[in-house]
């Protein structure tokens, strides 16, 4: 596509002024440069995450933290994230189909595929909201004992209650888990032994915020990077959906008929593919590795 007809020109002609030496329009070149800088920002976030992660001996295992599906509960490692990834890939495909339709001046095709792209983006955003909600609420929480050891709790029907004298009421079926989110096997403690440990509880915490999280009691950064990286990416998806929607309305209004080309669809397409591209890296480095 781009650049084919410019290849026969000599260097002097290309860089001599009066034309884009890159063989793309001003708008498209600027979109590329913006994406380069944005990708550097994401690289910075991911590398910062890598730095912090390597300063800790232990780090939560992705498939143990993210293993819940809406309505179905636990026991589905990484399936939900995989689904989110798939949604984003499919919406990237519909976007590239919209661009292809644009090259054929097929207005109906553009409207169809662009609308599907917007819907895919919205689905991804809603999935992200559920994921955040689940991450923030957590799954059972953990207790700290007088010896400073931490034990995670098995799944609780409801949050723990405080009794009148300021201690936590022991849940009915007490299951304590050692090494719930870490590498290797996790062990369960039940019955009398668990009740003995419960007698030394000093603190209980569940869920995640910027200061503490139950997935990595020693590493608040685990949740911080989750919020910052997926949040920054989610904000990109959000703006991408808005931009796609605006372009869709413009196409429907016929704003690009006058120009004789649908390059605006291509430019927003570049941005949308970039959002998908970033997610590919977030998926690998936050959830898989």
């Amino acid at each position, binding site marked *: 596509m781009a650049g084919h007809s410019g290849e026969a020109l000599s260097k002097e002609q290309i860089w001599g002024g009066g034309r884009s030496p890159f063989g*793309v329009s001003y708008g498209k070149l600027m979109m*590329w440069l913006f994406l*380069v800088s944005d990708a550097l920002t994401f690289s*910075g976030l991911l590398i910062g995450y890598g730095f912090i992660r*390597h300063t800790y001996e232990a780090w939560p295992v992705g498939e143990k933290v993210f293993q819940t599906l809406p309505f179905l509960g636990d026991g589905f490692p990484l399936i939900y994230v995989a689904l989110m990834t798939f949604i984003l890939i499919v919406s990237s495909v519909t976007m590239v189909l919209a661009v292809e339709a644009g090259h054929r001046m097929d207005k109906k095709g553009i409207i169809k595929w662009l609308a599907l792209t917007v819907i895919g983006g919205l689905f991804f955003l809603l999935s992200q909201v559920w994921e955040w909600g689940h991450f923030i609420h957590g799954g059972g929480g953990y207790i700290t004992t007088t010896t400073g050891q931490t034990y995670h709790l098995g799944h609780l029907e409801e949050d723990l209650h405080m009794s009148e004298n300021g201690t936590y009421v022991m849940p009915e079926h007490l299951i304590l888990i050692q090494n719930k989110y870490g590498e290797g096997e996790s062990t369960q403690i039940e019955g009398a032994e668990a009740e003995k440990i419960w007698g030394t509880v000093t603190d209980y915490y569940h869920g995640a915020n910027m200061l503490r999280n139950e997935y990595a009691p020693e590493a608040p950064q685990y949740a911080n990077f989750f919020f910052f990286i997926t949040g920054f990416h989610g904000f990109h998806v959000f703006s991408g959906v808005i931009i796609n929607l605006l372009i869709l309305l413009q196409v429907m209004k016929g704003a690009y008929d006058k120009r004789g080309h649908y390059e605006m669809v291509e430019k927003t397409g570049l941005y949308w593919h970039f959002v998908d591209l970033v997610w590919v*890296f977030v998926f690998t480095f936050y959830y898989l590795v």
Partner: protein
Amino acid sequence: MERDDLIVNDSYSVNAKHDEAHGKEMRKNILKVTIILSVITAVEVFIGATIPRESGSFHWNIVKYCFIILTLVKAAYIVLQFMHLGEERKNLKYVVLAPYGAFILYLIFIAITESNYVLDMFQNY
């Protein structure tokens, strides 16, 4: 600079048009890339869900590099096929890709090296 997305000049991407026959071929290619991306994602998730992490062990290092290679393959397909960078002029390719070769590879190297050193400090001093 003139608004070159409005002026007619055959060497610009705005005038890249194709007919229905060519479009059919392109859609076929899009389908192919879609299948490749989905299969790679499925493989990644399968590996991630079945092989438990064991930092430092030999087999986990292999798995880790497999993940990174698969990710780079996916990224290459998205950038070269979906974003059509593969069809752009060579100088635009360099403008887009060179900063990563120049800065990011070094930044990754130095961040990992330094953080291992910090961990060593925490553990031993």
